[in-house]
């Protein structure tokens, strides 16, 4: 299998000016993802799981270490070193991120949110509409809600919308920050099903899961983060 992502000695600290302190979040992270792999990360809250994901997505400013990614547009590049513009491009076309929160313009309907994430890539409205319909029905979001605003949604509905918005773009690399945290069993199954489908399509995924048992037989590889250090689990 071809490697798609390689983390080399990644470390990240946060300097808090108002307290005059520095907090070390993760240290010496080495990791390799093969194309099409589904990798799970577990660990306690505060252990540094999300930090790793956010470093890859560049939500956190790079500090020490390298993150090599094999892009279909740029070839091998270090995500810590590329320009912000290139990162924006990769975020639009290649790397997806699902967080636990839904950020969207107020008074934008669920349907529009998903459509927009496709339209900003430049596709035609009709295609975006079809894909949106497909993914929203897959997640069994009640069609009565499609033209409704997410502020009125339940936590689970919001989360499903959030995942749909990222997955509709079929990214090459998908980063999942506890996508199933507040979902009930049925919704979790839906997410799992879609992930299975994405694995089939060859999407590489790196996800944080609290309930790793649920994802266990899907994951190709499993890591555990303890106090900012990464340990591979058999």
């Amino acid at each position, binding site marked *: 299998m071809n490697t798609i992502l390689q983390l080399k000695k990644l470390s990240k600290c946060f300097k808090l000016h108002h307290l005059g302190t520095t907090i070390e979040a993760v240290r010496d992270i080495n990791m390799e993802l093969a194309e099409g792999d589904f990798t799970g990360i577990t660990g306690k809250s505060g252990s540094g799981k999300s930090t790793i994901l956010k470093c890859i997505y560049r939500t956190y400013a790079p500090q020490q270490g390298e993150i090599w990614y094999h892009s279909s547009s740029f070839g091998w590049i270090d995500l810590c070193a590329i320009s912000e*513009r290139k990162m924006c491009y990769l975020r639009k076309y290649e790397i997806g991120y699902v967080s636990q929160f839904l950020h969207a*313009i107020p008074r934008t309907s669920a349907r529009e949110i998903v459509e927009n994430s496709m339209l900003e890539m430049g596709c035609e409205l009709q295609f975006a509409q079809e894909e949106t319909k497909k993914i929203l029905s897959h997640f069994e979001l009640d069609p009565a809600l499609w033209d409704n605003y997410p502020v009125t949604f339940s936590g689970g509905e919001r989360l499903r919308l959030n995942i749909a918005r990222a997955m509709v773009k079929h990214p090459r690399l998908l980063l999942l920050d506890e996508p199933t945290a507040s979902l009930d069993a049925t919704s979790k199954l839906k997410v799992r099903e879609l992930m299975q489908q994405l694995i089939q399509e060859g999407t590489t995924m790196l996800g944080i899961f609290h309930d790793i048992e649920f994802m266990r037989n899907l994951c190709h590889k499993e890591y555990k983060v303890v106090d900012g250090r990464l340990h591979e689990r058999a």
Partner: protein
Amino acid sequence: MIRAIVFNGKTIYRKKFHWMKSFNEAIVLSVQNLNKQHGTGCEQCTNGNRHSLIKNYCSQCGTVYACQNVSFEVYEGETLGLVGESGSGKSTLMDCLYFDIETTSGKAFMPSYKKGEHNLFHQTSQEQRWIRNQLMGKVYQHASRGLKMDFSSLSNIAEKMIAAGYRNVSDMKSRATELLKHVEIPIGRMKDAPKKFSGGMQQRVQIARALSNYPPLLLLDEVTTGLDLSIQASVLDLIKIIQRDFNVSMIIVSHDLRVIRMLAERTIVMLEGKIIEQGLTDQLLEDPQHPYTQQLVQSLI
């Protein structure tokens, strides 16, 4: 988007769609070492000495350094956010770029103007008027600065189009009507003067006017400040649609980080007339480096 084709459980190839844009690093505007000062400066505050400065104000001679060595680029189709507290120089910077006020020193280039070889700030006022009519659009915080409040909305748009060189009246009328429809001004009210409109409607007329000459660069100065939440949402939505459908580059000034988060991919933070930090918007919000940016983010409600 790259769609994988799966056959017998194996990925065969990933399809690239024709509408996928390739990476584009074309610059629309480049600003280098822009300075704007009010006052002549004295020995205490010039020549590298900035001892007498309290923030950006010289206590000896009263000179205000509104913008100090500001440099940045705006790329094609991108939205650049500009945040900072009141008095940090955001609006001064925008006024300089639109030639509303004279720049003390510095350079600005637009590749769409004479191949980007001439400093915009050194052009004659006539040339600058041409640049702003052809290549820029601006929306002011106070609609009274951007609109003629007594003229009809249609003529406000026509005025900008005439300045940009349009002459055919029926063309202008249909373009203006189309734009006003786009910003959801009811057809029956298009002939009304903006003074009869609410703040949100005035802002939308300004946006329509700014877009009328198909500018490659749009400057938005605190467009949502002072509007109530629901009107604010409709203006934000409109800007998002413009981003998507018109492929214009925008600089959005706001002191509201939430507005910036929703609209801008990259953001610049200003303090006391200087750029203190710039980066991807979510990075600035989640991992701010500068003490002031940290304080700003911690103050978010």
